């Protein structure tokens, strides 16, 4: 075991870890040593090819195929320098006031959080795309919403020099997306923070972490790790966990923190999602242009959010229900397909949690509540109305049997799309907004950390990622993660003199 010493070690480099790293970089000027450990690789610019299987393999945990314990939902999360910020679409929304109020975390103020989120929105060049850069897939959503009686809103996006490759979820090949891999991490490294990739943190000990650094396998994308392969014990006087809603609780659970923190792993939510597809008579621009430029927020009223989206052939095939000739016919209509991503705003319930298996690997237990299924059904019905209003001739709805609904039946969507057709193991459900597991709150009885990400009873240990959410944020989460991570960094800077003995 190789020993290393730092003042602060950050586990994870996504929206949380990247933000904390940039927030702590000024400490390096005072001679403090700050280290980021990232499980994934640091890809070279030319390695972002946009090829579906290659990029999924290089950038996602389990190649994007991580499943819940009962195998009924795919959870997509990034594993790379920059974490999930490498593979999101750059949609930049601040948390709604009603959500933060409902979280009811003492010391967490909506105005403070939004102020911090805005700071990162500015850093990341968040803006709305000009109308001439919108594709038909997005325009049809806006038109369909208007005709169906809804008001679509435009997403603010963190792009710089977007060429409209449509490949955001495979890592932007034009380096346009301003994730932590483009903004906060390079800034932190310039400021003196060290980043070590291919570093899988297996355990947290008292003011230390145990890390296994992996060698680059033959044919694998990315640079070799900054450290040689092997097992390391990294001692640090402050440890910050930012491995995400699965990684952080799983790491603490396998490190034995479960006894002192009974809420560890609890409160997992994920916005369960369907990719819905509709066929138009004529080709539309769909696989060119930014894929996710508009959304419809019905979270407060109906517990769902609809977003424009465009996925790649395999992902699309996987997310359609079934197989065989009707499935193939829809796939062959690819140039005529419009897509909507349906997100249900699930609530934290006791049965949904992150656990670990005997080897310490994460296991996510997820049960669909009646409310979540009903939200997905309402969202699918609304999407079908929007598709037909936009001129679609056929709509694929997973909660319909058969799943294809013809235009002549457009008036029957409420009857045809029903919860009884939501058959687990048959319909494809995926999620990419993974939240909770180290929730903030008052004490160890109701939570894992306080409002600044301090783990209850463990002053040297902090959490700074989406696992802090006590419940679903009901909108795309990354700016909220950055806001919370900014608070964690501020808390560390403020506590550093005591914890690091530099007072």
């Amino acid at each position, binding site marked *: 075991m190789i020993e290393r010493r730092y003042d602060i070690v950050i586990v994870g480099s996504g929206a949380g870890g990247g933000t904390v790293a940039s927030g702590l970089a000024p400490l390096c000027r005072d001679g403090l040593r700050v280290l980021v450990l990232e499980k994934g690789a640091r890809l070279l610019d030319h390695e*972002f*090819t*946009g*090829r*579906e*299987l290659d990029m999924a393999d290089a950038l996602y945990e*389990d*190649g994007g*195929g991580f499943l819940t314990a*009962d*195998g*009924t939902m795919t959870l997509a999360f990034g594993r790379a320098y920059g974490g999930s910020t490498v593979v999101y679409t750059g949609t930049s929304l601040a948390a709604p006031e009603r959500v933060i109020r409902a979280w009811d975390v003492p010391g967490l103020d909506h105005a403070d959080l939004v102020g911090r989120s805005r700071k990162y929105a500015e850093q990341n060049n968040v803006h709305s795309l000009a109308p001439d*850069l919108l594709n038909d897939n997005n325009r049809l959503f806006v038109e369909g919403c208007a005709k169906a009686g809804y008001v679509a809103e435009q997403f603010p996006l963190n792009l710089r020099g*977007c*060429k*409209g*490759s*449509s*490949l955001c979820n495979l890592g932007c*090949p*034009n380096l346009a997306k301003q994730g932590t891999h483009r903004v906060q991490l390079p800034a932190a490294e310039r400021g003196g923070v060290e980043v070590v990739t291919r570093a899988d943190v297996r355990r947290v000990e008292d003011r230390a972490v145990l890390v296994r650094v992996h060698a680059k396998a033959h044919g694998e994308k990315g640079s070799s790790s900054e450290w040689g392969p092997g097992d390391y014990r990294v001692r640090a006087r402050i440890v910050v966990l930012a491995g995400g809603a699965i990684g952080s609780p799983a790491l603490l659970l396998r490190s034995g923190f479960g006894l002192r923190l009974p809420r560890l792993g609890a409160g997992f939510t994920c916005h369960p999602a369907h990719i819905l597809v509709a066929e138009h008579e004529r*080709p539309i*621009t769909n*696989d*060119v*242009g930014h894929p996710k430029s508009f959304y419809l927020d019905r979270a407060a009223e109906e517990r769902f959010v609809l977003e424009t989206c465009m996925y*790649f*052939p*395999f992902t*699309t*095939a*996987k997310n359609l229900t*079934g*197989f*065989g*000739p009707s*499935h*193939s016919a829809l*796939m*062959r209509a*690819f*140039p005529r397909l419009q897509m909507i991503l349906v997100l249900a705003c699930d609530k934290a319930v006791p049965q949904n949690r992150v656990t670990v298996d005997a080897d310490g690997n994460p296991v996510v237990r997820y049960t669909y509540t009646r409310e979540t299924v009903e939200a997905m059904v309402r969202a699918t019905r609304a999407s079908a109305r929007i598709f037909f209003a936009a001129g679609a001739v056929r709509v694929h709805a997973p909660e319909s049997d058969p799943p294809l609904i013809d235009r002549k039946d457009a008036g029957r969507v409420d009857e045809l799309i029903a919860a009884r057709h939501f*058959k*687990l*193991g*048959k319909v*494809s459900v995926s999620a990419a907004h993974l939240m909770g597991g180290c929730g903030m709150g008052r004490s160890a009885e109701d939570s894992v950390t306080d409002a600044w990400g301090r783990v209850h009873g463990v002053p040297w240990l902090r959490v700074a990622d989406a696992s802090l959410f006590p419940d679903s944020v009901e909108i795309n989460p990354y700016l909220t993660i950055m806001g919370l991570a900014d608070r964690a960094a501020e808390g560390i800077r403020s506590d550093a003199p005591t914890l690091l003995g530099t007072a």
Partner: protein
Amino acid sequence: MTDPVLPPVQRPFRALATTVVPEAERLDGPGWAELERIVEEQLARRPAAIRRQFRFLVRLLEFLPVARFGRPFSALDAARRLRFLEAVQDAPLLLLRRGVWGLRVLVQMGYYGQAERAAEIGYRADPRGWEARR
């Protein structure tokens, strides 16, 4: 290195694959080799128990139809294969539904994950984005 999963069940696997993606019928030798390489690569990353379960599933789906049609899956015509697999996909047992879901996802990955197949369905995404279309 792990032992490949598919060789002992190649015949029923291909019959299942062409039921999931009928166009796979038109694949030539290299096309099948690529589809099976992708599937094997995915299976190789899974624990040995999962690989065994996958092979068992393929065998189960091959022989279950004997009770109903008097022939194994691979000896059925395309319509009967489809009807049978759809019935399993709708089975009351979650385990069976999950099994069919996993199988069809692997086949779809092996097929649509190939750049040539993606191009055949008209997928044209290009890193150059709008510039490539204008």
